[in-house]
């Protein structure tokens, strides 16, 4: 049942989303494609040609970069999915989705760059783990010459991605399980003689997977095109494709922009191909799986695998936590040399000089994050309200539109978008950077807010309407106050997403806008871990503060309305 009610609102939202979100992505892709075929008037390239492609193919290490990208992207995504599923199977019955989310939130909130910097120090041959064990256990007076970071196989990068992606998958799996009668199905399966592990694989797996398919594609796309983490942890000679492309884009030699654009298109091709391959594998597994499930084997053999996955996941979480602690220690150290388990001398020096850069970076990060989150939140509320007024479920194309910025690799359109912004005279100013951040903040705010919004008890609204409240009053006096908690949670997620952005700031800010993230990534290839530690700690602290605010503000503001639960979220 559709309705004409709220049509102007929906039209407005559609126009804003199309012009503000879809258009920049398409414009960016278009400019990238033009440059890939030789058209970039800004550097005097004005004839269509395939020379950029030939240049790209002759770049040393291009083939290796491509292989590394595929390997790290697929390996990390597949492994993360298996580990998260195993952990959920092992632990699901011990806690509900809310406890789970609470444990997972810190890992989701920590930006990739901060985590990677901490992890790099943790696992380096001269890192914290080696320092704690040397020389008494290892016999090392000097760090060994082993490649544990920047290794040629990209294993450190895969580890870093796992620390971030396993918690993300856990969250979506737990959310999906809460929509299913999971306990009942498990009990029935076990009553029929299936082992716990096999029951998970055969009964719950096929029900959960369709619910988390889009997030899986988002993670795959992300893992195939991540830049900041790959700079800090990944192979360097040659790096993964996304890092190589970023370097070519930013090289002093501007003629490299053309082959870089061609490579950015290859990067999108890799992602499309990656998702297609994954989809193909899904089909194959469904086919084989049906036969396998119908054969009805009851085996118990999956149990050790599940326990192992649970153990590995706990280990990953411990690594993530230790990485952040290591950053804090460094930010407070004066000298900390190998193999001392803790700094030999301490200093607040790095914290005492905000004027040296981190003060300004903190200010910019806050300003961009708050503005991008506010914009996204307003748009998301307008969208959801439009859906309510039309009594219309979300169309599939609309859902796809929300996910679009998360599925298209950033590198494929951000440089082109910068070219478009340059033409409009927008490049390098804060407004443009905020806009670019909102492209990625909006989808997450939308995803986080949609379910609680729909779960709002319609009886409350009907009662308000019966008392004579119009649509606007129902929105402001009933929906928003009741949904304050999920709205603030969505805002905190959006803010965390903005704080973590690297490429949008780098490309659209044209080097003139510096956030904690861009500075931390740059400093990670410097000589002063103490200063890097300050940036990374601040970068990790901001999202925490946002989550904390989202958790405590509703209680403070609504302490006289104890029953207000914000739907069933």
């Amino acid at each position, binding site marked *: 049942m559709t309705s004409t009610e709220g049509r102007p609102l929906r039209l407005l939202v559609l126009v804003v989303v199309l012009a503000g979100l879809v258009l920049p992505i398409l414009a960016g892709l278009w400019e990238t494609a033009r440059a890939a075929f030789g058209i970039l008037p800004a550097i005097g390239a004005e004839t269509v040609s395939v020379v950029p492609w030939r240049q790209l193919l002759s770049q040393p290490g291009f083939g290796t970069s491509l292989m590394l990208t595929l390997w790290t992207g697929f390996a990390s995504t597949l492994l993360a999915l298996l580990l998260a599923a195993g952990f959920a199977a092992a632990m699901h019955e011990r806690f509900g989705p809310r406890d789970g989310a609470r444990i997972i939130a810190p890992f989701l909130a920590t930006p990739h760059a901060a985590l990677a910097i901490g992890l790099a120090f943790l696992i380096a041959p001269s890192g914290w783990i080696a320092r704690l064990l040397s020389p008494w256990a290892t016999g090392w007076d000097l760090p060994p010459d082993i490649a544990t970071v920047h290794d040629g196989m990209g294993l450190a990068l895969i580890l870093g991605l796992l620390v971030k992606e396993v918690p993300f998958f856990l969250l979506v799996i737990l959310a999906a399980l809460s929509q299913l009668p999971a306990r009942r199905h498990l009990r029935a399966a076990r009553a029929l003689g299936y082992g716990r592990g096999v029951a998970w694989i055969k009964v719950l797996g096929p029900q959960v997977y369709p619910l988390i398919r889009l997030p899986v594609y988002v993670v795959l796309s992300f893992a195939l095109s991540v830049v900041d983490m790959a700079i800090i942890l990944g192979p360097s000679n040659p790096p993964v494709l996304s890092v190589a492309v970023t370097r070519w884009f930013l090289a002093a030699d501007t003629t490299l922009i053309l082959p870089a654009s061609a490579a950015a298109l290859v990067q999108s091709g890799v992602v499309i191909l990656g998702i297609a391959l994954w989809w193909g594998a899904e089909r194959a597994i469904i086919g084989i799986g049906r036969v396998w499930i119908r054969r009805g084997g009851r085996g118990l053999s999956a149990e050790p695998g599940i326990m192992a996955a649970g153990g590995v996941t706990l280990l990953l979480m411990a690594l993530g936590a230790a990485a952040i602690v290591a950053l804090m220690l460094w930010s407070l150290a004066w000298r900390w040399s190998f193999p001392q388990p803790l700094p030999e001398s301490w200093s607040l020096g790095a914290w005492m000089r905000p004027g040296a850069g981190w003060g300004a970076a903190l200010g910019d990060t806050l300003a961009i994050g708050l503005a991008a989150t506010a914009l996204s939140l307003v748009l998301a509320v307008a969208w959801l309200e439009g859906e309510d007024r039309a009594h219309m479920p979300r169309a599939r194309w609309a859902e796809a539109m929300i996910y679009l910025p998360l599925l298209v690799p950033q590198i494929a359109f951000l440089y082109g978008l910068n070219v478009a912004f340059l033409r409009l005279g927008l490049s390098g100013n804060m407004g443009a950077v905020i806009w670019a951040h909102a492209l990625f903040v909006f989808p997450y705010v939308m995803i986080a807010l949609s379910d609680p919004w729909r779960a709002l008890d319609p009886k409350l609204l009907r009662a308000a309407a019966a008392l004579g409240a119009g649509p606007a009053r129902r929105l402001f006096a009933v929906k928003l106050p009741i949904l304050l908690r999920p709205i603030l949670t969505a805002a905190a997620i959006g803010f965390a997403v903005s704080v973590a952005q690297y490429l949008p700031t780098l490309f659209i800010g044209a080097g003139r806008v510096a956030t904690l993230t861009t500075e931390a990534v740059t400093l990670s*290839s410097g000589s002063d871990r103490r200063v890097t530690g300050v940036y990374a700690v601040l970068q990790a602290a901001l999202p925490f503060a946002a989550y904390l605010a989202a958790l405590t503000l509703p209680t403070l503001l609504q302490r006289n309305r104890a029953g207000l639960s914000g739907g069933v979220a």
Partner: protein
Amino acid sequence: MRLPVLAALAASFALPALADAWDDTVAAARGQTVYWNAWGGDERTNDFIAWASGELEAKYGVTISQVKLSDTAEAVTRVIAEKAAGQDEGGSVDMIWINGANFLSMKEQGLLHGPFLGNLPNAAYLDLSNGSAAVVDFTIPTEGYESPWRLAKFVLTHDSARVAEPPKSMTSLLEWSKANPGRFTHPSVSNFMGATFLKQALIELAPDAAILRDEATEETFYAATEPLWAWYDQLRPTLWRGGETFPENESVLQQMLNDGEVDFAMAFDPAAAAAAVERGLLPDTVRSYAPAGGSIGNISFVAIPFNASHKEGAMVVANFLLDPATQAKAQDITVLGSYSVLDPTKLDDTAKAAFAALPSSPALPSNEALGPTLNEPHPSWMTRITEEWAKRYTE
């Protein structure tokens, strides 16, 4: 005995005239603000320029406004654009911190004011003899169109607590690395510092280093670099991580030395290690030195565009930068730690005392340990070496 007498006579006639002209310049400069376009990426340099502005204002009524560049080419482009627009005076750039390719391009296009170096009284403290590092910029004769202000020189840094007798040549470095596999590496060759390390090796190993002064051709390149690649083929497997991967830049390498992952770091600034010790970034047992045969160095210059609005002010600034007191201040490791460009034999006793009184650090190399300064090869060599290295060693 007649020649020195003649020279002395000539000097005694020339000096008063020069002094008068200089007084006119100083008078015209009073009240000018010099827009010095200088790379702004180093906090200590920016602070030094701000300090110089204060001194100049007190002494000559000239102030400096630093236009902080992220790349010197920005200033060159601006002057080119002004020339294209027909703006032959009143230009926005008064002075540029410049080097190498940018200088060559401006000089060739007639975008520079000068020659002016001969007009500066403090130029008397420079070694202006033919081929001296003060008058050659990446093999290009400066012909008085730019004035030196700071020295950069390649040095190796080692931890004396771990390596007592460091290798003093590229050949002995190879022997050392063979004996201590995994303890030496250089920054990635796509980085300026990594490329400089290879250039230093090239100068030491090339059969005839004189050839490096001219632009590299196919023929000269292969002849001159053959021993370099033979040496590197042997060195690479002995490097840290088997030469499969390299630190991104000299800062990362310095951190690796601090962590004990390697035993050497390198820098293009003899005071870099001392400054790092000062800031707690290296142990106080590190020492810096140059290879025995000398090391690549270059001098950074300042030049004045042809259409500068405040040429007199710019010359007063250039002259101030050459003042022995200014150079001594710049060499102070607590200030800039940038070595003097002046010829020590031309300094008077007061000036010598100013240098001798500078705070010292064991990590600071003595002048003997620094050895002679070798000229940079022609810029084309660096480009070719970087490309050839990437071709040979990137899988």
